[in-house]
């Protein structure tokens, strides 16, 4: 049983989010503030003394200044550290795992740095970077991972709990449930000042996740045909007990404000299996709409997917997606949103769809998407049919300055026509309408595609001549 990589990524992001709950992120932030203040005392003072007290000033951008101008001279050792870190980042971004691990070998010498402040912040760095490399390195094995994390637990005691939890999750996603459980027990046995309450909660949450996966294993193993057998009955009972354990722990942790995506998904899965739809819906609603929770687009996505699975009314679906659109205008569900909005004879919804599509195409990831351009073409035609060309003009007004260069350059026309002709035609239609048929994009497409699709282009030209919005 392996987690889907995408799922895993979202778990990682979720764990990051969760730390902010446990206050560790705040610690880091404080530390950052402290360093910034320490490094820039004189400048900061100057600014505050000139201005009235009580005006909150943003942090001076000292952190971005080159090192040589920061006043105190940097030692060669720290320069090596800084450059090494930069190179590791670069190697990670470029997925050069071999180079990254070679640099990491060197970077470990900073463990011996004498200053306590630097040590504190760097332990987390060693852990994060090392984990990242080991997770992706083609030659690393799970044993390497285990021994590395065990060492990290020993040097950075402050991060012990976090490391244990993440270790356990990694083991879980590799299907090593027992080892994962052992890690959780280790985390449980560890005591530190004031973290006990939250610590327990977290560990229980992870326990719930483990129980869920055991439950999944059992349900997969349950043979279809022998459902009424005696052994099957006991297996079912077994599953039931795991379900109970898991749901208690999961529901407890989901009640805490935070980002709990994998926990939520597992819980919904469990509830759906036992047909407890109301509870699932209630939980998802809370997760998405409770103001105590940090804004999380995934919460809305899960809610939408759940509603769609259970044939919820159109109005509810649109409502969920409308909120998602506000949060993430470039979300992939937006096309679905538009197709939902394409109801005949509802002017209001056509207007909304037009807005959604325009803002979707503001993002470069949608630049050459055939579906997006196609639905924009359709929607524009629909809008003309309704006779509300002013809407298009409104949308265009704010984009007039940069869309021509962003979408409708002659170079792009040639390129798109060669690589992705349908997009090129749709774009040419939009460009022709918005910029007039003399615009570069339309002319290029018209010239280039005249031989292949003469009738369609002629028709398009005619349509544009009749409806052009260009001044």
């Amino acid at each position, binding site marked *: 049983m392996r987690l889907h990589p995408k799922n895993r990524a979202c778990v990682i992001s979720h764990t990051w989010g969760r730390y902010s709950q446990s206050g560790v992120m705040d610690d880091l932030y404080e530390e950052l503030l402290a360093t910034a203040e320490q490094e820039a005392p004189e400048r900061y003072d100057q600014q505050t003394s000139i201005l009235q007290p009580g005006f909150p000033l943003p942090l001076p951008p000292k952190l971005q200044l080159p090192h040589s101008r920061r006043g105190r001279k940097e030692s060669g050792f720290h*320069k090596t550290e800084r450059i090494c870190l930069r*190179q590791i980042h670069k190697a990670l971004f470029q997925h050069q795992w071999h180079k990254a691990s070679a640099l990491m*070998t060197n970077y470990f010498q900073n*463990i011996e740095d004498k200053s306590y402040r630097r040590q504190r912040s760097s332990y987390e760095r060693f852990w994060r970077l090392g984990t990242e490399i080991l997770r992706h390195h083609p030659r690393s094995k799970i044993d390497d991972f285990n021994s590395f994390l065990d*060492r990290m637990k020993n040097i950075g005691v402050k991060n012990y709990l976090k490391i244990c939890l993440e270790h356990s999750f990694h083991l879980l996603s590799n299907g090593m449930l027992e080892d994962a459980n052992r890690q959780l027990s280790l985390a449980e046995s560890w005591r530190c000042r004031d973290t006990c309450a939250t610590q327990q909660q977290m560990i229980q949450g992870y326990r719930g996740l483990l129980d869920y996966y055991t439950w999944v294993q059992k349900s997969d193993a349950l043979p279809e045909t022998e459902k009424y057998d005696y052994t099957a009955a006991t297996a079912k009972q077994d599953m039931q007990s795991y379900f109970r354990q898991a749901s208690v722990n999961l529901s407890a942790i989901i009640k805490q404000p935070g980002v709990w995506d994998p926990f939520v998904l597992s819980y919904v899965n469990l509830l759906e299996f036992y047909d407890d739809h109301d509870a699932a819906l209630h939980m998802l609603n809370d997760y998405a709409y409770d103001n105590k929770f940090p804004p999380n687009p995934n919460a809305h996505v899960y809610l939408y997917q759940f509603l769609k699975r259970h044939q919820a009314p159109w109005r509810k679906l649109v409502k969920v997606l409308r909120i998602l659109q506000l949060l993430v205008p470039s979300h992939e569900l937006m096309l679905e949103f538009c197709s939902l909005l394409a109801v005949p004879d509802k002017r209001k919804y056509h207007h909304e769809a037009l807005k959604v599509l325009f803002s979707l195409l503001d993002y470069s990831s949608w630049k050459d998407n055939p579906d997006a351009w196609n639905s924009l073409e359709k929607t524009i035609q629909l809008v003309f049919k309704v006779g509300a060309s002013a809407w298009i003009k409104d949308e265009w007004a704010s984009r007039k300055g940069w869309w021509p260069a962003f979408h409708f350059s002659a170079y792009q026309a040639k390129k798109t026509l060669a690589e992705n002709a349908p997009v090129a035609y749709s774009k040419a239609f939009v460009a022709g309408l918005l910029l007039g048929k003399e615009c570069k994009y339309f002319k290029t497409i018209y010239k280039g595609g005249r031989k292949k699709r003469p009738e369609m282009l002629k028709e398009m030209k005619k349509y544009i001549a009749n409806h052009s919005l260009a001044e």
Partner: protein
Amino acid sequence: MFLRKTFKHTQSHSRYKVLLVFYLFTPPPQRDYREPCAQCSEVTWGITDEGKFYCRSCHNVIEKTKEVTTADSFTANARIFSISKGLRKKTKLEQGREWYLCEGFQFILKLQADAIQALGVCPQFKDEILCSFWRRYLQKSRQAYTKKPLEDMMRIRKASESSQSSDSQSLGGWSSSSESELDEGQSDKNSGPASTSRSRSPLSDDFTSVCSGSVDGRLHRPQRQRARMLLSMPMTLAFCSMSLLWLRESITLSELLRFAAEGHIPYINVYQSFPEELKLYGKDTHIFRVDSFPSCESIQQHIYKIAAFLDLPRFPEITENCVLHPNILCIKYLMEANLPDEIHSYIWRVVKRTGMGEEASLTFDPLAKPAIPINYDIKAASIIIVTLKLIFKLDDEFEWSLSNDAESVNRNKEGVEIFNFRKWYKTMKLALDKANEGVEEDVARYMWQCKKPIFYSSKTRSVVVKKKRMVVNLQQQFKKLTGSVPRTPQQPPSSFQFTWDEESQDKPCFHGHSLRAFLKKSAVYELLNTGYWHTALKQCRKEYCKGHLHLEEPHLPRSYIFILNLFSFMLKVDSALLHAEVHETERLLLKAKAPTTPSGKRRRRVLHLIPCL
């Protein structure tokens, strides 16, 4: 008490200095004993201060002792090499022998001298020049070869202070503890001074044990640095550089530092090659550990201080035949910067006109006041830059427009190729970027921590050892992952960082190109360029001025900035420093023409300068 104390120490100084456990400067090999060593089968025997034979190559001490003969060569300077037999006791904390800081530095200096010797400097370097500087230093600073060793003086002063002050406890135990450590056995009977030290001994003994591994490490305090010229790691390089300067060797200061940074000359973590008996501990760790390479200027400062401290005479004169003379040094940099050889005749003129080639201004004289730092390589680079400004103007217009002409001439004509500034710029830019990248990579992979753990006190020992083990384990683990990534092998030491080749495509050589595009058709030396720009010539006070470059950079032409960066990369100095030196050279060059009250204008035009050259 004061009197008694002085008396006691005059007694004890005769066995004071125990130096040269590790022969610094190639002592004569022992001829008496010719058996090969059991460990390394070499036949190079030396004699320890206890009279035992030891192998010079592997430091293996054998049981055989030297028969003491009166006609021994050492007895002539018996005082200098006074061998204290059996007086060096093993101290607490399994610390090995008692040793002095200067012994440690001597060991480092020896390693550095050997490395420099291996680079091919003249054989006098180590045994004559560096050795005599070093001896003179030891004597002047009263660390050896003296009747009044420094430590005794310190102790006397300290003791007199303590006798005057009623609160002797608060003075701290170091002076008395050192005394109790040194004079144990002898001073026991001297009840007078011993009793004072005894009264604090339980405390002070502990204090000593935490203080340092070396005997005099705890006396080494930064605030005494100025008065007493205490040794520090950068000073070893200063000694080397000073000896090279005395010999007028071709290794310049910036080159020396580059070799140190590249690891050809031991500097970082040298202490890990100390013999077993020299245990680094406590304060010693701060003295011998380095966490950055010194800058050119700081070494220069050290050289000045040392030379003044040693009362050195005027150094040998830098004549026109010396490598350090700008005329010759410039050839090297012209070659490295891939510029045409023809430029040298203009450099020669600039040197002559500015008077920078005169012996008086080039020779280092520690007694001259005020002492002016002479940075030969920076001077040479600044001369080249000024000459380039004369020829190419470097105002982001002239050089490019003439490059166009050169390009068209090159296209049409066969024969000697004409120097094309644009082509040169593209080549150099590429090479510089690549070299910068390589340097950055090297910096990122530099190992600053030494292989064996060193710790400040026994309290932190366990933590340090644990961390070290952790680091080693982690490094092994990641090394396994790295596997067979080809690491660039270490380059052999070279004076040149850039190499150019006539044949190769990506590293074309411009040395033979002619400057015809930049000259007037009729005259031989007359340049087409008749303008010259420079920044404000006003001199500013050194202590307030932190380099103009950062302020002026946005207003300066880009091609000038590029050339500045190129040379600052080659010399490994800050470009602001180089800019200041260019400014200085310009001042010399334009002295006659410079207005008495410089106006605030940044870029002035000085016309008709070139024909007068």
